[in-house]
């Protein structure tokens, strides 16, 4: 399989008055065609900034200071703003977290969809409209003609997210980045939307980078999972292996705090302590202060190293492969 | 880092405010200029070269001299003279006294009246509150200059009339601010507790509610002092403000207006500069005070 997205050594920093926030600090990540990759981390871990870095939409004062992002082999870091604009929506699309906020409240759905069609295709208004209708049908929106004439606030949250998904998939992009697209929805709708995105991407061979804080959601759809902590990827591997035999203590901690069928009957535990303040990251391994396995070695920065079978971990004291899932 | 902030918290609040205020160079510059202006206005009778309203000291032959001219009495008029032969520097410093006194005085009276009404409205609620706030809303929906003009049209000219007009247009801001702050504060548990203890109204109002309303009131007041000075100047410029016998900066500007067109700019220009510098200095200080006193605005 060829790589749709290849991120190498990405650093996206925010220069603030009180110091530099290294939101993303050396991330390597590959998403192959048709693959679903889950990017998991707590809020502030840099997972969303990674997604926005790919699209070239990091808000100032944030800025990509180093690294490479290749989309279908084309370098995006340092690409012209116009080139990035051409790629956004056509080759890569994004679905946002809160459907209440992603659609412009003062523009009708047809305006917002048709401008997306015509940003990348020279078509008549009539044809643009046809494409919008088709896209809405594809995401299962009933009476699409009527919906097109509506304003966003006239639609339910689930319906709005479907519209956003339809817009993202309009040009059948090879890569879709989904930034917690189900978090803000009702629980009953969540599973539905989750399933639909997965189906639609599978049908069109679209690679999906699914960003979430919720390991349970990601485990349901991802082929591979990368876990982020304090701007770095601390563990990466095939979903099944990573979820059943985590190597990094942080992944272990996340799993322990999520109810799972793998470990029925065990107590849920939270990770002690809090995520480190972004302006005062601990020296060495950022997880060290919260880690039961930390030693003096951890005062140095561990490298991300391969541990076999497509797995990598950034830890001096990884959990052994055969370790019991819960101590 | 954390050790520092603990220390900072141990300092007195006033000292912390001063320290934060001094952080802004423009605010410090504004404060220094303001102090100089206040001192100049306060000590005007002792530092001005002449008393501009003692006719015996004026010489009509010195009229309309440009800045830097020497007068018949040997006095140098650094900012020129007006048509009466009055030294503009002296006239400006005397005018500052009136402008500042009217501006600050009206703000102070409006602050007391407005705060009292706002506090009472918040505390007693009901019909009284409804009435006060209706009047506030109604009045604030019209521009201050219009309300002041109408009042002065009915009352006539005079320093006291201008004061009344300025107080009338300002009190509503304080009433609204204090009521808002008092409602927020009054909803807190300690006020509830004080009421349960059957403390007298007076004590709850003045010991508990009022001090908590002070920061927003101070912020409003600094903005309002500048506005009041500007409004007084405008009214006097229009000829409906202070009388000719007690000319403020606005009236000085109006007096020089006819000469402005013939190129004798200094009679209007320098009082205007004094007015503008005063207003800008107050605004610089006020802006910083607002940032310092309102923690929510800090980034």
């Amino acid at each position, binding site marked *: 399989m060829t790589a749709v997205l290849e991120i190498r050594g990405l650093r996206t920093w925010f220069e603030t008055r009180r110091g530099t926030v290294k939101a993303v600090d050396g991330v390597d990540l590959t998403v192959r065609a048709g693959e679903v990759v889950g990017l998991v981390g707590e809020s502030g871990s840099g997972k969303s900034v990674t997604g926005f870095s790919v699209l070239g939409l990091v808000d100032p004062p944030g800025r990509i200071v180093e690294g490479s992002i290749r989309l279908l082999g084309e370098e995006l870091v340092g690409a012209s703003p116009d080139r990035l604009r051409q790629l956004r929506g056509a080759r890569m699309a994004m679905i946002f977290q809160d459907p209440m906020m992603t659609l412009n409240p003062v523009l009708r759905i047809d305006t917002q969809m048709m401008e997306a069609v015509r940003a990348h295709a020279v078509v008549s208004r009539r044809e643009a409209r046809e494409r919008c209708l088709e896209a809405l049908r594809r995401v299962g929106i009933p009476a699409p003609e009527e919906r097109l004439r509506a*304003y966003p606030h006239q639609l339910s949250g689930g319906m709005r997210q479907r519209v956003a998904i339809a817009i993202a998939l309009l040009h059948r992009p090879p890569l879709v980045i989904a930034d917690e697209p189900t978090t803000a929805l009702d629980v009953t709708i969540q599973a539905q939307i989750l399933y639909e995105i997965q189906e639609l991407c599978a049908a069109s061979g679209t690679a999906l980078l699914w960003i979430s804080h919720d390991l349970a959601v990601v485990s349901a759809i991802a082929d591979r999972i990368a876990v982020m902590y304090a701007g770095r990827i601390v563990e990466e591997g095939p979903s099944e292996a990573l979820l059943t035999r985590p190597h990094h203590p942080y992944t272990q901690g996340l799993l322990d705090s999520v109810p799972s069928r793998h470990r029925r009957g065990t107590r849920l535990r939270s990770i002690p302590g809090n995520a480190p303040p972004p302006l005062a990251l601990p020296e060495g391994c950022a997880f060290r202060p919260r880690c039961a396995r930390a030693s003096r070695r951890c005062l140095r920065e561990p490298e991300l190293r391969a541990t076999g079978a497509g797995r990598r971990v950034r830890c001096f004291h990884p959990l052994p492969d055969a370790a019991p899932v819960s101590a | 880092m954390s050790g520092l902030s603990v220390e900072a918290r141990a300092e007195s609040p006033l000292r912390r405010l001063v320290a934060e205020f001094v952080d802004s160079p423009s605010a410090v510059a504004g404060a220094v200029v303001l102090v100089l202006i206040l001192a100049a206005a306060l000590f005007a009778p002792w530092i001005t070269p002449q008393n501009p309203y003692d006719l015996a000291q004026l010489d009509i032959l010195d009229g309309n001299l440009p800045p830097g001219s020497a007068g018949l009495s040997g006095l140098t008029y650094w900012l020129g003279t007006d048509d009466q032969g009055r030294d503009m520097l002296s006239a400006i410093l005397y005018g500052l006294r009136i402008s500042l006194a009217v501006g600050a005085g009206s703000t102070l009276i409006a602050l007391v009246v407005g705060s009292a009404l706002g506090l009472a409205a918040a505390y007693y609620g009901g019909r009284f509150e409804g009435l006060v706030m209706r009047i506030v809303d109604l009045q604030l929906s019209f521009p201050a200059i219009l309300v002041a003009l109408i009042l002065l049209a009915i009352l006539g000219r005079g320093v006291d009339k201008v004061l009344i007009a300025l107080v009338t247009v300002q009190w509503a801001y304080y009433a609204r601010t204090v009521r808002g702050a008092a409602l927020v504060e009054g909803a807190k548990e300690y006020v509830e507790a004080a009421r349960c203890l059957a403390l007298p109204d007076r004590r709850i109002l003045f010991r508990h509610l009022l001090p908590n309303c002070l920061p927003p009131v101070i912020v409003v007041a600094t903005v309002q002092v500048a506005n009041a000075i500007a409004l007084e100047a405008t009214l006097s410029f229009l000829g409906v403000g202070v009388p000719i016998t007690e000319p403020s900066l606005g009236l000085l500007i109006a007096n020089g207006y006819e000469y402005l067109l013939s190129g004798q700019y200094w009679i209007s220009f320098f009082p205007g500069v004094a007015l*503008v510098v005063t207003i800008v200095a107050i605004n610089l200080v006020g802006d910083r005070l607002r940032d310092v006193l309102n923690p929510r605005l800090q980034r």
Partner: protein
Amino acid sequence: MLAYLIRRAMQAAVAVLVMAVLVFLGVYAVGDPVDILISPEADLAEIEEARRRLGLDRPLIEQFGIFLANALRGDLGRSFVHNEPALRLILERLPATLELAVAAMAIAILLGIPLGMLAGLRHDRPSGKAIMAGSILGFSLPNFWQGLMLIMLFAVILGWLPAGGRGETVPLFGVEVSFLTLNGLQHLLLPAVNLAIFKTALVIRLTRAGTREVMLQDYVKFARAKGLSERRVVLVHMLKNILIPVVTVLGLEFGSVVAFAVVTETVFAWPGMGKLLIDSILNLDRPVVVAYLMLIVLVFILVNFLVDVLYTLLDPRVRLAERHG
């Protein structure tokens, strides 16, 4: 929508009535109305005659009825100075003031919105900060002083533009206007700019705040993620959201522009109703003052009403809530 309009119109009518009561109380009931309504030069017999004619010997409530009936017929007294009906005098001057106010609003919008958006988009760069500093100065310096400086610079020192007066006018739909002749335009420019400074500063502030708020919204990011051009993101997605609050506030400010024209008209000797008001106050010509007051109250209430309607048309959320509610 129609029901909504009718309801708002009725609210406006009630507001006018309330203001009429206040004006009546202010002018008729406080102090001796004869002082206000009759020339100070009148002798005793004339005053007695006037009292009867004005019905001042009757109960207050009846007097209010007479005042209201006269006002409804457009009779707000006669000017002592011009010996003309006060209302007609004011209405004659109204077009000049409206022309000035509309020109000032146009300048404020055309200058303020682009500058405000620029200041918002570049809030951390020197250009953005310079715009804000200018707007703070425009806000805090007295309007008449700004006018004097405009005259000093452009009329006295540079000699480019006239210092005052209205210049040549031509009739447009039966109303004399300045902006269609070059001479009139030259006379209009400085006072219009002077009157616009305050509102421009206000528009810059509002637009900048709106821009900074809107530019962080997800829908702006999503619009960019769709691959829209920066032009379309700013001019359609951002501008439309910014305009709603700005237009609302600006519309409400129209009344205050008309009121502030009092100062500008005096500085530039612009023959509008604001200058008439100041002249009337100085000449103790009180019927004109009363007429001005009633008219400006009407303008304020009318403006509020129109802004509400406009707001409803602009914001689909309000529009639909009203329709359904």
